[in-house]
């Protein structure tokens, strides 16, 4: 009885997973065949597969430059997120006056969409003379509240006695974070790395506003430029989408176990 119920549940999960993967499959299939996506009836299996749309993208646009810019911006965002969020989360695990109010303010700030703060963010970036720069592109994503709470949940799970022992041994606070908290929070680190990487990698609106120099364009901007060249580029366009997606997917697949651990840590007691 229990086995048949598990089989039904697994069957349903397989169907749901397949339904969620269909768009990715379709993009991959179209990138390898270039077939008309409005064709009816649609062909489920690809025919006459070839990689030439990827070659077209590689040579048709400055892909390496876009890729390099995206990698630099994502690296800045990831490194900054790890440092800033770990420091903020550690501060929130300590007892201090107004701690609850700070947490409430941070949580309420999560309700404000980025689009609502984009003008002040632009003005600040301009005042810092960071427009058209990699640092300016990464600036709004240098610390994210979600990742602060991911770290906080993980740090809260570290026994207080361990932190007290480190203090008695004379470790300053930053070394407690570096040598005690972070090694015990690898899943939170992995979650922060993946989330900040994916957010900065896929960021479109902010780079569109702060970048005027084509030399500083990132992959999502390149994708929109490519789309504007001409309409009949279905195969090449989808090939470009796959090339943009692959690094993020590779990172997720490498760290998926820790990522899921990081998101669920603190969800249960004990």
């Amino acid at each position, binding site marked *: 009885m229990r086995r048949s119920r598990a089989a039904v549940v697994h069957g349903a999960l397989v169907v749901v997973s397949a339904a969620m993967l269909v768009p990715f499959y379709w993009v991959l299939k179209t990138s390898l065949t270039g077939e008309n996506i409005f064709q009816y009836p649609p062909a489920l299996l690809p025919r006459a597969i*070839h*990689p*030439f749309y990827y*070659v*077209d993208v590689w*040579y*048709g646009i400055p892909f390496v430059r876009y890729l390099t810019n995206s990698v630099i911006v994502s690296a800045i965002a990831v490194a900054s997120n790890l440092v800033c969020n770990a420091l903020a989360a550690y501060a929130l695990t300590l007892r201090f006056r107004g701690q609850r109010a700070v947490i409430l303010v941070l949580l309420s700030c999560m309700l404000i969409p980025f689009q609502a703060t984009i003008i002040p963010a632009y003005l600040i970036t301009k005042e810092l003379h960071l427009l058209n720069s990699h640092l300016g592109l990464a600036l709004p994503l240098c610390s994210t509240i979600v990742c602060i709470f991911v770290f906080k949940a993980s740090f809260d799970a570290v026994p207080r006695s361990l932190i007290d022992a480190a203090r008695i041994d004379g470790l300053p606070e930053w070394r407690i974070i570096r040598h005690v908290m972070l090694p015990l929070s690898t899943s939170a680190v992995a979650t922060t790395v993946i989330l900040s990487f994916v957010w900065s990698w896929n960021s479109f609106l902010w780079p569109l506003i702060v970048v005027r120099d084509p030399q500083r364009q990132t992959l999502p901007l390149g994708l929109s430029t490519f789309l504007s*060249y*001409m309409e009949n*580029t279905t195969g090449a366009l989808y090939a470009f989408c796959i090339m943009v997606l692959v690094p993020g997917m*590779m990172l997720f697949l*490498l760290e998926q176990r820790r990522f899921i651990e990081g998101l669920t840590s603190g969800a249960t007691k004990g």
Partner: protein
Amino acid sequence: MRYAFVLGITAALVAGWNAWVVFHDDGIVRGRVVDAAGRPAAGAVVRFWEKTLTTLEPRASTATGPDGAFVFTGQAAHHFALQAEQRGLGASPRTLYRRYFRGQNLVLDAPLRLRAGP
């Protein structure tokens, strides 16, 4: 360990591919032109166009030898078109070809076949 493995494999594939490209990117395109009966067409003019995202740009032309063979050298385009023409024998359809990388040396599988015009 996983990172080292994945990055190592990726780096090895990229290095291998680039080494292959370096030794096979002279931009040579070889082929043959035949008439409607399949006989070699000597002295036919073969034109080479580069296919960009929007247009076909003329790049080079050459003439076939006594055996109908032709060769282009130093042509980098990864997507290009060829057409052969000979007075009295007509012209071949303009045919698109693709290469895996710029300047890949390529020998055409099928000859360009001349057809008498309308």
